Structure formats: C-alpha cells, structure tokens
C-alpha cells in the first residue's frame, strides 16, 4: 500500500477533529463525559487544554491562574514553539473549511481571476488588529470578549447549543459569510489577517529561533524561472522559495508545498535550523 502523503494524513486529522467536536456534545448528551469543553477550554479525560488568548484575558483581569489553565495554555504554546502554528494547519476546523473553500475557489473561478490582493504582510495587520482588540478589552470589558472572535470555538459551540439545548445558533450564518467572502477574495483572509487566537501562537513560535520551518535548497530546485507549483499550492498565498523572517510568520507548516515539491527535486523540506 502506498504511504499516504503529508497532505492526506493532515486532512484525515483535520476531518477527524471536526467530526470529534460534533460527536463530543452528542456523547455528553448521553452522559458520556470523558471529553468536555470546546476550543476555548477542553478537558480530554483529565488532560486540560486551553486557548492561550482566553487564559491571557482571564489572567489580565483577575491576576489569577489555575493549574489547569497553566497546563492547558502551556501545551498549546509549547507545541507552537517547537513545531510552529500546526494547530492552525492540523487541528483548527475553521482552517479546514477555509482551505477547502480556497481550493474550491481555485477550481471553480476562472484562472485569470487573481482575487483580492493586499499589500503588506499579514502579520503586521494582525499585530495591529490584535493590539486594538486587546486594548479595547482592557479598557471596556471585564468578560473575555475576544473569545467571541474565535471561529473554531464558534464551530464547536454551534454543536454544543444544538445537541444540549436544541438551539440552532445563528453563528452558522456568520461562519458561512466569512467563508463566502474568502471564496470571492480567493484569500484566506481570517487566518492571515484577523484571527486573534493565532497571534499568541505565532508569538510563541517566534520566541524559538530553532522551530520547525520550511526550508528551501536552491541547488535542488528543478523548476524553471516562471514555474512555481509550490507557490500555487500554498493556501495562504506565500512563496515557499522566498520565506524570509517576515513571511515565515504567516506559514502554518502545513507542508502542502513540500508534497508538491517531492516530485520536483525535493528542494523544499522541513528543518529545525535557525534563521540565517
């Protein structure tokens, strides 16, 4: 049997997680509660997992941390420090939908359509929006109000609402509208420019210079000058050949470019080297 590519195994994990968060509220409804919670805070049979931004908001307002939250946010940040923001590429259900919509947009819309082009790198816009949101939270809110911007949390909450109290949340429309805009713009706007939850993961990743990265070896590249299959394959519209420090902040280590490059000289690959 053929060994599944990185992309196939990633899709299997993503779809598995997306289905798991439908099943968990359903199981809870039938009193099986080894797994509880949503993407803001999750309890996996005793192991706590938490969204670092939610924990940060609670800590800032209460000067308080519980052991559960330290472990939960620590696991998420530690993983990002070593392997980069693989939460976004392997686990986040909105990331899955966003990727699928991006692929669909490429397939359906005409090739000549370039989509929305935005100047400047995503991370700078993200820093700006994040600091705007965080200062708004510190000034005007006591509740962790940035949690409402967590799209994976809304995804899991829709099913919590549905299976536990038979309430169909209109947040479904909210998610669909964002996906529709991304389809028309042919850019993964939310993931690249807005998602405040990913900001802390990116910050944790930048704290470790020897984290997992996509590396490019120019001498191995077999593509002609005008060919860039790796760039075409990148759902975040990055250029894997020119991943400098700034562009690399947007990379989710999904490995799609590496899969494409496998047949073309294996010039791209994962590595733990520090930045040159």
């Amino acid at each position, binding site marked *: 049997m053929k060994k599944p590519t990185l992309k196939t195994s990633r899709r299997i994990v993503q779809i598995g997680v997306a289905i798991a968060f439908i099943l968990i*509220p359903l199981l809870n409804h039938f009193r099986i*509660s080894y797994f509880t919670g949503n993407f803001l*805070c999750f309890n996996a049979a005793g192991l706590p997992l938490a969204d670092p931004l939610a924990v940060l908001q609670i800590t800032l307002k209460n000067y308080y941390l519980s052991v559960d939250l330290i472990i939960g946010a620590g696991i998420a940040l530690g993983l990002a420090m070593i392997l980069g923001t693989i939460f976004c590429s392997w686990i986040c259900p909105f990331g899955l939908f966003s990727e699928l919509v991006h692929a669909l947009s490429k397939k359906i819309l005409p090739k000549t359509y370039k989509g929305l082009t935005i100047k400047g790198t995503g991370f700078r816009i993200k820093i700006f929006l994040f600091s705007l949101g965080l200062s708004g939270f510190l000034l005007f809110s006591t*509740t*962790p109000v940035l*949690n*409402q911007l967590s799209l994976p949390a809304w995804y899991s*909450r829709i099913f919590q609402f549905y299976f*536990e109290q038979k309430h169909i949340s209109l947040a479904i429309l909210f998610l669909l509208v964002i996906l529709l805009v991304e389809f028309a713009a042919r850019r993964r706007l939310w993931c690249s420019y807005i998602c405040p939850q990913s900001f802390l993961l990116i910050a944790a990743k930048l704290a470790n210079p020897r984290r997992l990265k996509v590396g490019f070896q120019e001498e191995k590249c077999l593509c002609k000058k005008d060919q860039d299959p790796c760039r075409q394959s990148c759902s975040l519209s990055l250029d894997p050949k020119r991943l400098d420090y700034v562009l690399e902040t947007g990379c989710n280590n999904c490995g799609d470019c590496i899969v494409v490059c496998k047949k073309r000289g294996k010039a791209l690959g994962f590595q733990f080297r520090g930045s040159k």
Partner: protein
Amino acid sequence: MMRLRFLRPPGARPEKEFLARCLQCGQCAQVCIFDCIKMRTGFNPFTSGTPEISPRDAPCHLCMRCSAICPSDALEDVSIEESKMGYAKLDRKLCHTWKGFIICRSCYERCPLKATAMVLEKGIYPAITDRCVGCGVCEHVCPEQAIVTIPTRFVT
C-alpha cells in the same frame, strides 16, 4: 427566547467576577446530569456562552459536578450550604396550603435542604428560611407557581 431572570450554577462568584473568569467553554453544561445548565444563547458578546439555570424549566439539584469541573474557578468548589445561587420567595396568597384548601407540601418534600432551608410552620405551612440556597426545585414543582427564585448574582 431570552430570559432575564436566570440563576448562575451553584458556587458562582458575584456576577462581575464570574463574567471576568468564565471561559465560556460550556463544560459545566456538559457535565450537568440533570440538563438544567444551559449555555446562554444570542450574540451579546459579554454573556453569550455563559451558563444559566432557569428553574421553571429545569431546576438545579445541587450535585455540584459543575463547580468541580470549572477550569477557571468561575464556579468555586463550595459546599452545598454555601452555594448561594439565590433565594426562594413564597407567595402565601397563591400557595394551596396557605390558602387553606389543600395540604400540598410538594415544595417541602422535594427541597434538597429539607428542614433547614424549608420548614413547616405549625407542621403544615411551608416557609422558607434564610438557609435557602436558591436551587429552584421548589419553584419547579409548585403546582400554583407560588414560588419564585430570585438570583443573588448581583449581591457581592
């Protein structure tokens, strides 16, 4: 439908502190074996996803599973007697027993803190003492809806 009069689960801190700590993860609602804790619906960004209990629909039975699982201690681990969710108020003009026609005792028999939170005056008439924690069971079982549970969310 949005309800304005709702209780927080047992062990909840005062409202402002509770809202500052609640992660809106919904674990309390998922471990509630009586399905009385619901997550607040709607799009108010400050309260959406926080837990609520509407005793008319389903009262709290004080099993305290929710306060045990709360990861951010928005629901504190307290004993049943200290879990001040609210207090019940009995309208004697509506109560069967106080009206003097039927000896009802529904509320007294179901009260989780029978004989401390709810006592029988002269052995017949139900009366609520200040030990009531406001679980809302009496409100739920009262055939005349003579009992209303008033939340203590805003009392510090």
